[in-house]
């Protein structure tokens, strides 16, 4: 029995969002009489932090403290329409919609403040701490709370804004077959190191090193947790998970979490991540999205690492010990490739 080390690399060019009939998301922003703002979305936060990021985007655009913004994603029936949380599109599509809605709401807020301060709205600015004042004259100031109260009870005005971000449908050019299915691309490169047991076919992760270029990281800690967790999912898809291990034969399919294999806390490996920030021209504050793409480079990198370790090319997922062992036997033993 020998354990063979192998290293594999993969790079990806990841289109943010999709384009099957256009890819829109909407957002509504309104102030409450307390001077706090609500963002209404029907986009779903699955735990990646879309609520946190859209809250930041809204607060930054309005010019108010982040504590003054509440993001409501309660109901996809009554909320403004969203295509969904997938394809790394949340930050980019929904963030842009929130930015547009917040910009419109800010315009109304500044008009309402101008009426109270008896100045021109163009002469006003926000201090980011809940106040609006005359440029160059901070003492001529009104709080966003007082503006909200005035708008509600004296001016009869709603401080609100609508936003939509739409990447229009891209038709295929009948002559060339060309199309532009996405406007924004993120990039990644990942090197996986594995150890393959040529007696059992088992693949153990040794380490991963990756670099992700995902526009501006609006919340670096959320980006990092996405990349760490997403890489684990990539490992899981590469080596463990499947509802039908002998597809199309449904035999031996898992029936519960005991049989549905996923890497446990003892199966993970060190993962060094570098985040490169190159702002996207059409992203909210330059953001692209770190969602789905963080799992993607892991799979081909592991397949390449296994080839590098024992010389077998497995092209069906997941790469189970059985597949590795059969392939090693078929070629008459492990054939380690040159280390690069």
């Amino acid at each position, binding site marked *: 029995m020998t354990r063979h080390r192998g290293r594999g690399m993969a790079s990806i060019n990841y289109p943010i969002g999709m384009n099957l009939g256009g890819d829109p998301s909407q957002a509504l922003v309104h102030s409450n009489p307390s001077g706090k703002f609500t963002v209404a979305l029907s986009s779903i936060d*699955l735990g990646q932090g879309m609520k946190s990021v859209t809250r930041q985007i809204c607060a930054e655009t309005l010019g108010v403290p982040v504590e003054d913004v509440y993001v409501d994603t309660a109901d996809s029936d009554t909320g403004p329409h969203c295509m969904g949380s997938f394809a790394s599109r949340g930050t980019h599509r929904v963030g842009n919609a929130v930015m547009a809605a917040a910009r419109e709401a800010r315009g109304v807020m500044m008009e309402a403040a101008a009426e109270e301060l008896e100045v021109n709205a163009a002469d006003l600015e926000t201090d980011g701490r809940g106040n609006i004042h005359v440029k160059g004259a901070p003492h001529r100031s009104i709080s966003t709370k007082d503006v909200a109260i005035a708008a509600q009870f004296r001016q009869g005005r709603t401080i609100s804004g609508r936003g939509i971000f739409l990447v229009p449908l891209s038709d295929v050019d009948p002559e060339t077959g060309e199309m532009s299915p996405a406007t924004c691309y993120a990039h990644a490169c990942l090197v996986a190191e594995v150890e393959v047991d040529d007696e059992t076919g088992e693949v153990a992760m040794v380490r991963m090193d990756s670099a992700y270029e995902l526009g501006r990281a609006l919340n670096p800690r959320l980006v990092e947790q996405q990349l760490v967790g997403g890489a*684990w999912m990539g490992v899981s898809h590469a080596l463990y998970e499947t509802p039908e291990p002998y597809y199309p034969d449904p035999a031996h399919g898992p029936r*519960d*979490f*005991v049989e549905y294999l996923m890497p446990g*806390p*003892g199966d993970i490996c060190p993962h060094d991540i570098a985040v490169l920030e190159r702002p996207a021209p059409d992203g909210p504050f330059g953001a692209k999205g770190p969602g789905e793409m963080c799992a993607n480079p892991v799979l081909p990198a592991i397949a390449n690492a296994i080839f590098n370790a024992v010389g077998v090319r497995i092209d069906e997922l997941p790469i189970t010990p059985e597949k590795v062992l059969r392939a090693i036997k078929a070629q008459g033993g492990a054939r380690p490739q040159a280390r690069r």
Partner: protein
Amino acid sequence: MSKIPLQFRHNGRDVAIFVDGGTNLLVALRELIGDMTPKFGCGQGGCGTCSVLIDGELHLSCLTLAETVAGRSVETLDGMKQGPNLHPLQRAFADNFAAQCGYCTPGMLMAAKALLDRNPSPSRADVIEAISGNICRCTGYEPIINAILAAAGGRASA
């Protein structure tokens, strides 16, 4: 079927309920006592998100018959916070971004508490062993392991 009277301590408070024979502790906690912190994941001991402490020992509440906790002390995540303050483990989970969707978090915290209660300064291998019965889909485990080690470190230095 006749109901069985059942009394036990729930997060330091005496509770008395009537359960059907065969009712598991998870259902008793969630539906009869209203403590929604233990989650239903698989109902057959495969995921760990229903974990609770019974007399300080980690158990899967979905595989525990409710009537077997008569007279015993059951601790759930609901009892972990210390007055208005988070438990050091809860604080460490937040600081280390150890939750994303949050569904595994109650079970992870109970497994972590069971570990730190019996071993205040665990090794990384101890932590991995302690949470190996709990499935997490989002975090890749690393932030959870780091959070538990951080909570242990904080406790040791405090």
